[in-house]
């Protein structure tokens, strides 16, 4: 087990180094990549500028000094990153770290809510489907789960925004919260806090809904399959013979055993939803991390774009790492066979 922890930790470090190196080399080396593009742009806008001046400008923007030896550049980049310095955003006029720090809580808020809701709906629907296996409810729900799971979340996003946002005017069309509402989270002023949270939730509602519609089906089908398998196990018959209550059997015997194997898969899904925020946040003009990534791309603000990339990937990597490490602790069956696979 200790070997497994060490292996996973090494793997996490390799992932982080890979991601950081990737972003370094993409900016630095690719022909026509960000550094070249920026240089060309500067040359075009300031024809009189000398090469050295341009290099200095590029350095200020991309966090890269093109004249230094490669190794020095690379270590500088790593040191800057480890100190939380990702350069300065060229369009937002603020350090990238600052912009990201203000954006991350919103993305986490939206994705956590969506995942929570999808989890409750998916797991309970899946369990019900398994209990009523073969019934009309089961077949309808199965079809519904497959169909909703077969359309990407951003398509729900566009449709919801179009119908509920633009046509019916029930929901705001973008932003984190209304301008009129003061962002307060303070226990001393509960009314304002509730008002602010409600407003924030209303702004995020359509985004959350599109994720939920997309995700619930996969989890429901997984839960259904696992539960059906468990319902046929011998220990369940024994539990019934012992006269345990149906409720206890459903929750402790079936539910728990069916959900646990999905734990890692779910956390990976969460990671990928985090990455998927890139498209959804753009549709809803919701300034979370994904939104800034595309803003950075469109406006050639490469430090911002790369900053988001590094933050998203490292967050996901750490999330999966924690999931893997805690899995054996949550589900003892996994540590019994070493958890190495």
């Amino acid at each position: 087990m200790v070997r497994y922890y060490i292996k996973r930790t090494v793997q996490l470090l390799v992932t982080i180094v890979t991601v950081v190196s990737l972003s370094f080399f993409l900016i630095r080396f690719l022909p026509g990549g960000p550094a070249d593009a920026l240089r060309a742009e500067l040359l075009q806008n300031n024809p009189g500028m000398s090469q050295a001046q341009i290099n200095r400008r590029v350095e200020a923007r991309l966090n890269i000094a093109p004249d230094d030896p490669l190794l020095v550049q690379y270590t500088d980049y790593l040191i800057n990153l480890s100190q939380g310095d990702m350069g300065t955003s060229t369009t937002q006029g603020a350090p990238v770290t600052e912009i990201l720090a203000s954006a991350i809580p919103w993305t986490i808020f939206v994705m956590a809510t969506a995942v929570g809701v999808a989890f409750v709906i998916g797991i309970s629907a899946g369990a019900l489907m398994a209990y009523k296996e073969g019934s009309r409810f089961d077949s309808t729900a199965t079809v519904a789960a497959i169909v909703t799971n077969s359309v990407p979340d951003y398509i729900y996003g566009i449709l919801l925004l179009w119908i509920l946002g633009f046509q019916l005017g029930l929901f705001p069309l973008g932003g984190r919260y209304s301008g009129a509402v003061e962002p307060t989270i303070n226990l001393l002023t509960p009314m304002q806090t509730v008002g602010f949270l409600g407003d924030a939730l209303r702004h995020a509602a359509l985004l959350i809904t599109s994720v939920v519609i997309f995700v619930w089906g996969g989890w429901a089908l997984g839960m259904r399959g696992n539960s059906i398998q468990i319902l046929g196990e011998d220990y369940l018959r024994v539990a019934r013979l012992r006269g345990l209550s149906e409720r206890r059997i459903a929750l402790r015997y079936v539910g728990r055993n069916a959900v646990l194997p999905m734990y890692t898969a779910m956390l990976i899904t969460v990671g990928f939803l985090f990455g998927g925020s890139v498209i959804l946040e753009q549709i809803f003009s919701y300034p979370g991390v994904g939104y800034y990534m595309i803003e950075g791309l469109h406006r050639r603000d490469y430090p911002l774009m790369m900053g988001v990339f590094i933050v998203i990937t490292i967050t996901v990597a750490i999330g999966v790492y924690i999931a893997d490490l805690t899995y054996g602790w949550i589900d003892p069956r996994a540590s019994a066979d070493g958890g190495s696979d």
Partner: protein
Amino acid sequence: MSQKTNHDEIVDALDDEDSAFGAVADDTLSKRERYVRALDRNIVAPARIVWDDLRARVGLAIIGIYLFMGTVGPKLIDPPRTGDGPRLEGAFETWAHPLGTDSLGRDILASIVHATPNMLLMILAGGIFTTVMATVVGTTSGYLRGRVDQFIMMVTDVVMTIPGLPLVVILAAALSPENPIVIGVILTINAWAGLARSIRSQVLAVRENSYVEAAKAMGMPTRTVIRREILPNIMPYVLVNFVNASRNVIFASVGLYFIGVLPYDTIVNWGVMIDLAYQGGALQTTAAAHWLLAPLITVMLLSFGLIMFAQGTDRMFNPRVRARHSSSGTAEEPDEETNSTPATGGALK
């Protein structure tokens, strides 16, 4: 005729006298017969199973429509041009523009049809890249085991944890790809990892079979063992995952064209149409609704077709279903079988 029976008798006699080791197959299969048998086992029987499933039939029909649209379609319908017709004509109003026109008067049906070939190329490139890469990595790793396996799986796990979309976004920004095949590969740049892992575990199970051991004992080279004894066992699984990979290529490419990450000049993708409609205010006015809905429905229908096909082909794994179809009897399907396989396989990787 009589000669043949004679011959048979001799063979029988030989069989009786010698031990079983002395027996030699009394007739060898000609090359052609062998091909016919392989064809029957690998293509005809699975195809029959697939065709028996309603979902697979629906899926195949839908995929067929898109294939037709992508290959023959552009020859039947003129490419969309600015000013083809009046601006923002609604759908189903005239025969000249059955799906209406966009804000520049381009025919929407023509735009959709002419975006299809690129889309299919992209799907094909992405699907092939993912499955080939995953199969090669997964089988080598699972078959060789030991150090090589550990190293490969380390790399695979690292690739797997990097979320695909942000990675694709920065690659697209750095490379600005325009060739659909290149785009297809970039979109699936790390999609192979998850599949490689599951193929590896399948290979680990298959390689324990005695016939693999026999092949090794006969001194077959590793490559031949993998190709002849292991790959055929995991092929159906790979096929289903090819379909899933294709679906992801569609989702990603349409999504990235829509948010303007991939560069475009003309309509090369349904995502471009969605983007143009979105930018052109199709959300605000109902007059432009058809412009937005047409590409959306196009994407949804294709994705639905692919998922139906994948669900239907899932049954190919079921050895009982396979066995029943190879002998031509058509017994009633026991209920349990349909329920147990597909649901878990698709949702949890």
